[in-house]
């Protein structure tokens, strides 16, 4: 999925998030007032409205909350990779994000499967996160 893959266009609230992803160090904001983690990045805590937050590095451990095997690509950029797996992953920090489940046969994917975080460099200094099954 390398060519013309859609990439994020960061804004003032997400620039730090994507900068950390580009350094292969996914991190989440944690509210300094109520201690809640949040994803996606926001200037205000959606729990308590505090604007004070710290960045906490993701542990990289998670489980598959759900997944879908895409047999029709969302766009031409994904045609060569089809079928590919899009998954919702619950990370140890308590946040859920959407990503790709890779190095996993479509028949192998399971809800609840433990996964580990990795990165794809997609050019122009942009990286994206992905997950793969934890292998013994």
């Amino acid at each position, binding site marked *: 999925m390398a060519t013309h893959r859609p990439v*994020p*266009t*960061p804004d003032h609230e997400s620039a730090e998030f*994507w900068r950390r992803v580009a350094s292969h160090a996914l991190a989440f904001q944690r509210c300094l007032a109520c201690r809640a983690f949040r994803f996606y990045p926001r200037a205000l805590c959606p729990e308590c409205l505090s604007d004070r937050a710290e960045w906490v590095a993701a542990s990289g451990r998670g489980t598959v909350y759900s*997944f879908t095997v*895409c047999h029709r690509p969302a*766009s031409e950029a*994904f045609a060569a990779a089809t079928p590919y797996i899009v998954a919702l992953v619950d990370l140890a920090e308590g946040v859920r994000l959407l990503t790709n489940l890779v190095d996993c046969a479509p028949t192998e994917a399971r809800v609840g499967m433990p996964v580990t975080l990795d990165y794809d460099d997609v050019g122009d200094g942009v990286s994206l996160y992905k997950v793969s099954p934890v292998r013994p």
Partner: protein
Amino acid sequence: MSGGFDGALVGVAESDLGRVPGKTAIQLAAEASARALADAGLGKADVDGLFTFGFGRMGSVQFGEYLKIRPRYSDSSFMGGATPVAFVGHAAAAISAGLCQVALVCYGSTQASDAARRLGGAPEDARQPSSQYERPFGLPTPLGAYALAATRHMAVYGTTSEQLAEIAVATRKWAALNPVAMMRDPITIEDVLASPVIASPLHRLDCCLVTDGGGALVITTRERARDLAKPPIAVLGVAETHTHQIISQMPDLTVTGAALTGPRALAMAGLRPGDVDVTEIYDSFTITVLLTLEDLGFCKKGEGGAFVAKQRTAPGGDFPLNTQGGGLSYCHPGVFGIFTVIEGVRQLRGECGPRQVANARVALCHGTGGVLSASGTAILGRA
């Protein structure tokens, strides 16, 4: 019913449906509006409340210009496919408060002729959350999000593809009884399962159609409704909510906003799920219907698969559902919520010919918008 809540549906209509080349979206909305006003026995000059969206950035303003309607009350809200059902509530609230007396709700789309509906989803601002946190991973939108919900429901509750297929098959049987439905040839559960998987576990026949079309509703006071052309249908209860926009922000993929709006709307009407005679639910995908049935309280969470088994929702079954053939088989110009209300009204009037549900006195209409994001419920009854 709560004290002082007014509102009766007095006119409903579709525009031409299907593939309607050579017409614009606003034209289809206007065509449906003219037909709905004629259905009510009202004229354009009677309209003093306007509820629409989707025509440029100021939907109701543009539509008002197009038909020279200068309303006392105007609403261009947009909550995806839930919007028209929510508009029934907005209009009834405005009417109850005396802010307008004749409300026009309308919608039109040429998404089929425009070939605008693609798996990548509608183009969004590059900085939108969907563009930053979903598009880079190739989630087909909205289909992929609904597929994620289906996978989760199957994993947690053991729901099967066969059970989802029951919904598509039953809905097609209703469409066969509707002369304006697009897809009227019978299908079997095996046909659904043999159709290509688009985003697992959803097959092509688990997915709604993509068509052109429009619809319109006319709502007024119950008092004024008594003297109009058709038997008035009372707005007994309404509720709306939204819980997230992008799928990673949905709290639990097996529970939709209908779990909030269904009980609220029924309580407002003073009714229970068992009092509903005919149910019209936005069926963007088969899983949407199954989740919504559970959330509205027709069965317990997780029991939707068993509930729809053995063609229970088909003509002749004991739970008439999506009696015009739904978005799966009748039409789907997007924003199907408006068609749930049109059919609910027609069923309560007794106008539905071969697909008429006998002695239908209470209808539940439910719209879902976005990726299970927004919900609107309306309970309608013979006035």
